[in-house]
């Protein structure tokens, strides 16, 4: 039977297209819509697979308003054969759970089930630019009941009915072998989407797009739309930029440009004008009764992830909000931490000293290496037994695929990549009750421009926390806690995915967390294999400055730098005193990884490079001119205003 390749896409407003309106505000209405970038990489992955399976049928699916037909037609003009749109007003306001449910129902309706005789591969984008959750691919895989690989950069078939996927993980990558059918979500770092062809566009123009309503696919309204979704967005506020406007260097050659930078650095750059905060009006507090919706669920569960035989830093960071939430909940609320693997008991005391009240140990040979299917099954079993009110995961590549897969099993919504977790309450004016206590999960969204507060009404309330946001808790040596064991049921069907290879760098990552100055070379600096970048960092070190060099994602992809040096990978935030970005265009992931640096200096030949929007100081010029000049200045004693280490 011929293979069917199914691509799931979403249409989103193009962020870079948003123009300044005539009133000086961002004009979203004029922003054009595009296929979400990650999804378009998924489309290309499908077209690449077609090279291996010339007979494959390529279909593209989306869920959204009728205007999404534009993107479906674009997919067809790139080479897809058929297009399906799930479009129904009743789906409006659906959260990721409801979206995953609706899309998987449509796919099942089209005949794609785990038992279907026709082989198929579902491709999707890792996450969307207007939601950033990365949930839907996991949720679809769970709901259909098939294996998945998320954060995948490239995918190919092995000719024996399996899919080989290169999955990006912290500090490296993993090669996975998955059976068909399966779901693969693609990062926007693999093969870029091709341009439409004219012949494709002509085909797309005449194409009949099949549109379904929820009745057509047999989907009820109980679990979809604004009323059926387990989570709701209760508040969205603008994130005010903490960074004042950039100061650009002026001059006609590299010496003058660098002189100008040094002067500007001394002056200290622009200062952000702080606006007086307007006193908020007291909200009138209605006289509604409290409602405890937890139904007896108690406690906070976290998962301790192991990488390179150690508890990963983000998992330790997670214990800070966990402890904080437990304190806010009071009533002796427990923080329980689950650790899964082979011979993991020795880690229990470390977790307790970081704040866990109870460590639940699952030990099994088969669970030595992380795999989403058995791990999500184990964690769901623990949740069922322990019935926690809140479950927290670090927003690592594992945490971000586990949480939605588990949420689908427990019918909970998930809030992704949170930077704030607090206990609050929700005044329901319709029901005239106050939901209390409830987890308020805060997360940046819309390209980091807004902060949304999201509530979930099904326990456990699941959230993932962005790495680098919370501090690792202070260790209390000798702290006492409970250590218990859990014996899960393991099913063979959860072990169908094979890890062919795991490659993870060491060392550099920690140095990046502690360096005072980080010099980062982007794609624009690979001409000399980062030689200039490295020598600038080395020269600073010679001067006694705690400096390190790093690189952006494409440089690592080209094999010029090791993974551990990469800034802008999922779940890593660094905060040096001075961050120097050279030849870095400023992809959103990169910005997320470095934007909390104290001062940012950007050097790029393109005056329109995105990076300049996030920097304090900028130089427009070729790195081959500017960096040697900087090296000379460092040799002469210039240290970017950083003091040398005393010793």
């Amino acid at each position, binding site marked *: 039977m011929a293979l069917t390749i199914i691509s799931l896409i979403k249409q989103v407003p193009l962020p870079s297209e948003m123009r300044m309106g005539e009133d000086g505000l961002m004009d979203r209405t*004029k922003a054009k819509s595009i296929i979400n970038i990650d999804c378009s990489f998924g489309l290309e992955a499908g077209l690449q697979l077609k090279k291996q399976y010339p007979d494959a049928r390529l279909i593209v699916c989306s869920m959204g308003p009728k205007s999404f037909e534009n993107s479906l037609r674009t997919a067809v003009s790139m080479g897809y054969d058929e297009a399906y749109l799930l479009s129904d007003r009743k789906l409006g306001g659906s959260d990721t759970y409801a979206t995953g449910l609706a899309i998987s129902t449509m796919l099942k309706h089209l005949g794609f089930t785990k038992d279907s005789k026709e082989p198929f591969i579902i491709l999707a984008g890792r996450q969307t630019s207007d939601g950033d959750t990365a949930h839907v691919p996991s949720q679809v895989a769970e709901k259909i009941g098939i294996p998945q690989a998320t954060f995948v950069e490239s995918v190919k078939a092995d000719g024996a009915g399996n899919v080989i996927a290169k999955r990006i993980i912290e500090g490296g990558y993993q090669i996975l072998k998955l059976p068909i059918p399966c779901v693969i979500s693609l990062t926007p770092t693999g093969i870029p989407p091709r341009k439409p062809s004219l*012949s494709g566009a002509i085909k797309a123009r005449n194409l009949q797009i099949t549109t379904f309503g929820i009745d057509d696919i047999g989907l009820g309204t109980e679990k979809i739309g604004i009323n059926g979704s387990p989570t709701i967005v209760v508040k969205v506020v603008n994130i005010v930029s903490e960074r004042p406007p950039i100061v650009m260097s002026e001059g006609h050659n590299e010496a003058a440009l660098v002189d100008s930078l040094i002067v500007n650095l001394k002056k200290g750059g622009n200062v952000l004008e702080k606006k007086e905060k307007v006193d908020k009006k007291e909200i009138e507090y209605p006289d509604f009764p409290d409602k405890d919706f937890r139904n007896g669920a108690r406690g906070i569960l976290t998962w301790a992830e192991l990488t390179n035989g150690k508890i990963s830093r983000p998992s330790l960071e997670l214990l800070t909000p966990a402890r904080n939430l437990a304190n806010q909940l009071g009533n002796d609320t427990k923080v329980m931490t689950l650790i899964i693997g082979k011979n993991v008991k020795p880690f229990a005391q470390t977790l307790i000293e970081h704040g866990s009240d109870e460590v639940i140990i699952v030990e099994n040979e088969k669970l030595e290496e992380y795999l989403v299917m058995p791990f999500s099954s184990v964690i769901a079993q623990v949740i069922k037994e322990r019935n926690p009110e809140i479950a927290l995961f670090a927003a690592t590549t594992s945490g971000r695929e586990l949480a939605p897969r588990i949420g689908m099993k427990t019918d909970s919504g998930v809030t992704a990549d949170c930077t704030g977790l607090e206990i609050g309450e929700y005044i329901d004016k319709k029901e005239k009750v106050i939901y209390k206590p409830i987890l308020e999960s805060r997360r940046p969204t819309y390209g980091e421009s807004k902060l949304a507060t999201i509530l979930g009404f099904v326990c456990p309330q699941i959230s993932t926390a962005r790495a680098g946001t919370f501090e690792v808790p202070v260790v209390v040596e000798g702290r006492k806690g409970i250590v218990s064991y859990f014996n899960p049921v393991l099913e063979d069907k959860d072990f169908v995915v094979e890890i062919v290879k795991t490659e993870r760098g060491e060392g550099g990552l920690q140095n990046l967390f502690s360096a005072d100055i980080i010099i980062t070379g982007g794609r624009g600096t690979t001409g000399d294999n980062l030689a200039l970048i490295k020598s600038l960092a080395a020269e600073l070190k010679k001067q006694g400055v705690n400096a390190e060099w790093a690189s952006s994602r494409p440089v690592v992809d080209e094999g010029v730098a090791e993974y551990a040096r990469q800034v802008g990978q999922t779940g890593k935030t660094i905060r040096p005193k001075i961050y120097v970005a050279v030849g870095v265009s400023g992809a959103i992931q990169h910005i997320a990884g470095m934007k909390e640096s104290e001062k940012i200096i950007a050097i790029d030949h393109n005056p329109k490079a995105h990076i300049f929007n996030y920097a304090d100081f900028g130089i427009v010029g070729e790195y081959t001119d500017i960096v040697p000049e900087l090296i000379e200045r460092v040799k002469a004693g210039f240290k970017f205003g950083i003091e040398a280490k005393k010793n």
Partner: protein
Amino acid sequence: MNGNDTVSTDVLIIGGGPSGLATAIRLADILKQTGRNNRILLIEKGREIGSHILSGAVIKPLVFKELLPDVNLSEIPFNSEVTKDTTILLGEKGFIALPFHVPYMSNKGNYVASLGQVCRYLAIKAQEKGVEIYTGFAIDEILYKDGKVIGAKTKDTGIDHHGQKLENFQPGTRIEARITVFAEGTRGSLTKMLIAKFNLNKDRNEQVYSLGCKELWVVPPGNIKPGEIYHTMGYPLDNDEFGGGFIYGLNDNKVAVGLVVGLDYQDPSFDVHDAFQIWKASSFVSKILKGGKMVEYGAKTLPEGGYYAIPKLYTDNAIIVGDSAGLVAMPALKGVHLAVRSGMLAAQTAADALSRNDTSEKSLQQYETLVNNSSIYKEMYVVRNFRQGFAKGLIAGGLLFGTQLITGGAGFFGRLRSHADYQTTLKLSELKKKPFKERFKGKLEFDKVLTFDKSTDVYHSGVYHDEDQVVHLHIKDMEKFNAVNIEEYGAPEQFFCSSEVYELHVDKAGHKEIRIHAENCMHCKTCDIKSPGDNITWVVPNGGNGPDFQNM
């Protein structure tokens, strides 16, 4: 998905500007009236219709009535009827409003408009009539068979900087057409190939061009009224620089301002964009812009060689229309109505040829006959020597124009020849007058309120180019470029480029090299026209690349 993608059509129209759209609309109408069902494909390289359209514009509306007889003129998104039309003799600090108009420059009954908006409207009309329009596709090759045009091919995509195929390589589509209409606008890159291949400019004058830089502003109410228009002569241009400024009041407190300068100027350091900024800072213009905000920038060239520079407009299976054909009437620099008119005549010719089943050169000769019997000829022939006269300077040009007015365009010398614009630039050593930078010393610091550097302006054009493609500006002979263009002429490319594509980099050791920032390119084609030694070829980049004009 391999190299054999071919589509067939009866008529292929390359370019979605006024001439191409008029061709499409008229052709669809005629076919419908005669009960025929021929396919019309129109391909536009801009992201959307209008993305690459820029004009002043003051438009003569009459021809639109003929193009769209069933449509009320008020339905076309013209902006405002011209209410006040003044010609200004401009000085830096003062001005004189001339009590008369330069002949052929009256704008009574005309409309100010965004030509981009008008084109978007025409595209909707064309599609309603069954024309297939595809935007965001670049055509970089004319297809020939037995030495005759048989269509064109879209550009291959998925190619890296060095021309190597990438994994997402997508071959272009061959479009086989019985008739191909070249409606690419000014200095069309395919039209240039077509003219060269069939020697269509034999015995014609060299085409000459002007470069216009334009900004759209929103100004406080009261600064200018909709329909209030000014044309300026004089400052900051010298006697040997032909051109002038325009200020067109639009609805919603918008105003379009621009400066158009003939590219036959001599000073290798002359910079039209910067001259435009200096012009804006004059007391007369700055008063109108005071308190306002620039919202959009763009630039384009326009052919102004006039009647004698029009190439032969047809060959076997091919027709040239609009700006690509050089159909612009001087001295008003009006080409929109002629573009529409030429499109309508091309449509008539194509319809007749299709019905005769004869698209040969002989059959398409009808187009030239129609043009020569039309208002195009009437408007262009009387001023056939106008522009060439001004090659000798404004004073001499004015005198010659005077004699032409008396003699019905002939002047006392008959046909005046013209030189290609790249030939008129002087070497640094030959330049007698002060170079541009010295001439306007102290006026080239741009305040980013009233005046802008190129980078800032370029940012307001919405320009975008894919990173993965071969640089679309080809220097033909780099050695010669270094020795002549840089050393002898001082790299005029860095100055004449409207959008900071060319940068002359001088390192500390004094070594000079030209750096090309193709991603800024406004598609104005000035470098293809003005580079000394004719040393640069502009080829079309990926489809959908280039500026993204909204209201230009």
